């Protein structure tokens, strides 16, 4: 039984690796050749996910599609900046969508913006960071998400997908803020353990 499950897991991981390699090749083709067919493949995979992601936050279908358009155009214009060592293509697309949403909140109050990713010293990455992209590809992050307790997973979904601040999560779930934070710490500790040990 265990062996069968392990085999299914491995198949899933292999499928993930295959897809990720494909996305990377599309990104390269967009970056180097402005390849519209490669972009169309990326659009067809990511646009529906982005739309459903955007709509999780009480956004109208119309605004969600505007944001999808903006996010996908950013994929087109910034393709050359994607660095596989820093994470998967999917993670990169997630950070684009997240930054767009933050920009939109600030644009509503007419303030200039910078990106969360604009770090002062991007080059002194430790080796661990360089390995992250490969680890995610190997399915470790997905495995971490599958194996955490539901109450921690729920907090991650509310944070990353619905983008609700911790204090509002506490109110919504009627639990103390300290409990929200400790569940986040536990979830993150679990992820780190799996990334470090591969188990």
């Amino acid at each position, binding site marked *: 039984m265990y062996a069968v499950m392990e085999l299914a897991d491995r198949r899933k991981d292999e499928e993930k690796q295959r897809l990720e390699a494909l996305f990377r090749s599309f990104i390269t083709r967009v970056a180097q050749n402005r390849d519209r067919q490669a972009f169309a493949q990326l659009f067809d995979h990511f646009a529906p996910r982005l*739309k459903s992601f955007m709509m999780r936050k009480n956004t109208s279908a119309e605004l969600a599609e505007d944001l999808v358009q903006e996010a996908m*155009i950013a994929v087109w*214009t910034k393709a*050359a900046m994607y660095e596989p060592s820093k994470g998967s293509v999917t993670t990169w697309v997630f950070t684009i969508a997240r930054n767009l949403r933050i920009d939109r909140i600030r644009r509503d109050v007419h303030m200039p913006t910078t990106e969360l990713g604009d770090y002062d010293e991007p080059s002194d990455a430790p080796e661990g960071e360089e390995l*992250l992209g490969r680890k995610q590809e190997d399915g470790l992050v997905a495995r971490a998400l599958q194996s955490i307790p539901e109450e921690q997973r729920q907090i991650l979904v509310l944070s990353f*997908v619905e983008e609700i601040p911790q204090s509002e999560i506490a109110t919504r779930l009627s639990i103390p803020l300290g409990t929200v934070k400790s569940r*986040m*710490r536990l979830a*993150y500790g679990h992820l780190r353990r799996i990334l470090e040990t591969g188990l």
Partner: protein
Amino acid sequence: MKPNHHLDDSTLLAYAAGTLDEAFSVVAASHVAVCPACRGAVRAAEALGGELLDSVGGASVSDDCRSRTFAALEQAGLYRLPVAAPRPAFPRALAQFLPVASLDDLAWKKKAPGVAVFDVKLPASARGQLKLLRIGAGRAMPEHGHGGEEITMVLMGAYVDHMGRFAAGDVADLDEDIEHRPVVEQDGDCICLVATERPTRFKSLAARIMQPFVGI
């Protein structure tokens, strides 16, 4: 600069998810910029976001959205990295809100002997407050708690409290019930960047006494 005091894991996750209030986000970004360990941690947390994006399932996208996107590609230029400006004397995440070249040029407001404060003006969307706090060499602050969420990053100089020595790059990302009595080192002023919730509730008497003193 290799910081010894880091952001709490829950802060790192909120930062990666994009849900940290702007005031706290500026402090987190300033620390992450100089801390390789926390930068790696943010990337790992972002990977969670990527997996979750992958797992939300799809909503059908209209043909109109698709064709508008493809039509816009014609006009979309290539994104160019901004030419790297000379490194300011303080973190870039903060620099965007400070129209000065040096922290000395700020219009510091004296609050008490050896204590000056500068309010950083944030967009209206920010719910927290961001302040710079300048404390003279050798000064001791009265023991205080904070009665709310607070993250402090040392930009210049150093202070010592019961949790250790906090020097440039270090952050104190503390639970609200921790009380401390920071003492600035003898060899120079200490400048800290402090994000706090708006002062709506104060638990301890010490915090109420501190409020008019430093305005946080």
